[in-house]
């Protein structure tokens, strides 16, 4: 049985932890609102870009001569995986979930006898992946100092990927990130970005319109597809940022509640042992008086 003093100290420490987790929850809630807004604001761009590309691909007559970023280079040997995680911890299963999904894919790729290359974005994911797949990591990026991730950072990652593609360092590229569904649900996702998988039965909205292209389709596609890679990555960044805050908010909410439960339990313990010691003292006094 711990002494009264010990219990008192324990209660105090749990209470101050609770204060911290509560504050973190508040901060995450405020940040979540902003991140969610950003994610929503970013959606039209990627959607409309996607639409334009759909319209363009429809009018390509010669598929074999289409840009490689769109249809692939015909090989299926080297996979590049970009794992996007957060730079900070204390956000529940957020980072672990992405890494789990990514590792599953890595194992599958290696099992099929294919080559694997990994780029990690965010320091937490790098830490988790390097123990098992460290030798496959070719680059790591971290935007810890940046307060808010802008398109510039996404572009940096996107350009790097395209540079690698142009010198034929890989054949297919996947990105791993958390898709923000709502505050409590975030779904880890793998998305193929190179070659841009577009012909999977999606319907084009403006079926009737035939476009005039200036210059011709190929040149526009060449200009557009690298942008699409960056845009997809930026979208993943935004979704991830919102998911991170949502996940942290839930985690910190749970932690605050747990701390509250613990304080209640400890307080009952404390009161009991205080009462016990008082009773003990009383018995001592009474039995002392009786023996006189």
């Amino acid at each position: 049985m711990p002494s009264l003093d010990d219990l008192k100290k324990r209660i105090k420490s749990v209470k101050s932890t609770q204060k911290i987790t509560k504050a973190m929850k508040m901060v995450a809630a405020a940040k979540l609102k902003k991140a969610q807004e950003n994610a929503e604001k970013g959606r039209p761009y990627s959607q409309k870009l996607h639409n334009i590309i759909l319209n363009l691909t429809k009018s390509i007559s010669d598929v074999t001569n289409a840009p490689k970023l769109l249809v692939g280079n015909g090989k299926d040997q080297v996979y590049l995986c970009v794992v996007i995680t957060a730079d900070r911890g204390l956000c529940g299963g957020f980072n672990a979930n992405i890494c789990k999904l990514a590792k599953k894919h890595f194992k599958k790729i290696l099992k099929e006898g294919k080559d694997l290359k990994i780029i990690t974005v965010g320091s937490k994911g790098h830490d988790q992946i390097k123990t098992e797949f460290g030798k496959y990591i070719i680059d790591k990026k971290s935007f810890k100092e940046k307060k808010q991730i802008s398109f510039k950072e996404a572009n940096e990652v996107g350009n790097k990927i395209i540079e690698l593609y142009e010198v034929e360092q890989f054949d297919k590229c996947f990105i791993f990130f958390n898709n923000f569904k709502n505050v409590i649900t975030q779904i880890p996702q793998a998305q193929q970005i190179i070659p841009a998988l577009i012909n999977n039965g999606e319907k084009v909205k403006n079926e009737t319109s035939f476009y005039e292209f200036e210059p011709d389709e190929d040149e526009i596609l060449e200009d557009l597809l690298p942008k699409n890679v960056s845009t997809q990555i930026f979208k993943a960044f935004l979704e991830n940022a919102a998911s991170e805050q949502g996940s942290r908010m839930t985690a910190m909410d749970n932690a605050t509640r747990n701390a509250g439960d613990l304080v209640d339990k400890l307080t009952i313990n404390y009161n009991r042992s205080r009462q016990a010691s008082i009773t003990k003292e009383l018995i001592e006094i009474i039995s002392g008086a009786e023996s006189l």
Partner: protein
Amino acid sequence: MSQEFNIEIISPDKSIYSAQVEEAVLPCFEGQITILKDHIPLITFLRPGLIELENKKKFYVEDGTVEFSNNNLLILSASAQSLKDIKNQNIESMIKDTEEKILKNKISDKQKYILNYKIETLRQLN
């Protein structure tokens, strides 16, 4: 009948501008294009320059993609900024940066063409 059509300028972060206009002048890759209502559907991309709307609103862009269909003009650009915003920045240092880039030997003719337009536009603004 009104001669207006919808225009929307969107950057990856947000929607920059959205309104009804009668006329828009775009700095397209192969020359300036003016778009009026009922233009035929068009997809093209931009070089550095100014997007000019009839109500004296101007936007600076470095690149971007344009789609016009069903009287909706959509401009997707990562670098679009309204002229007011860009005037607060240091245009001179931007010109200098671009000039340095042009002097590097590695760049292709296409890039050179784009950078030249960028310098020209920035000089005009200055």
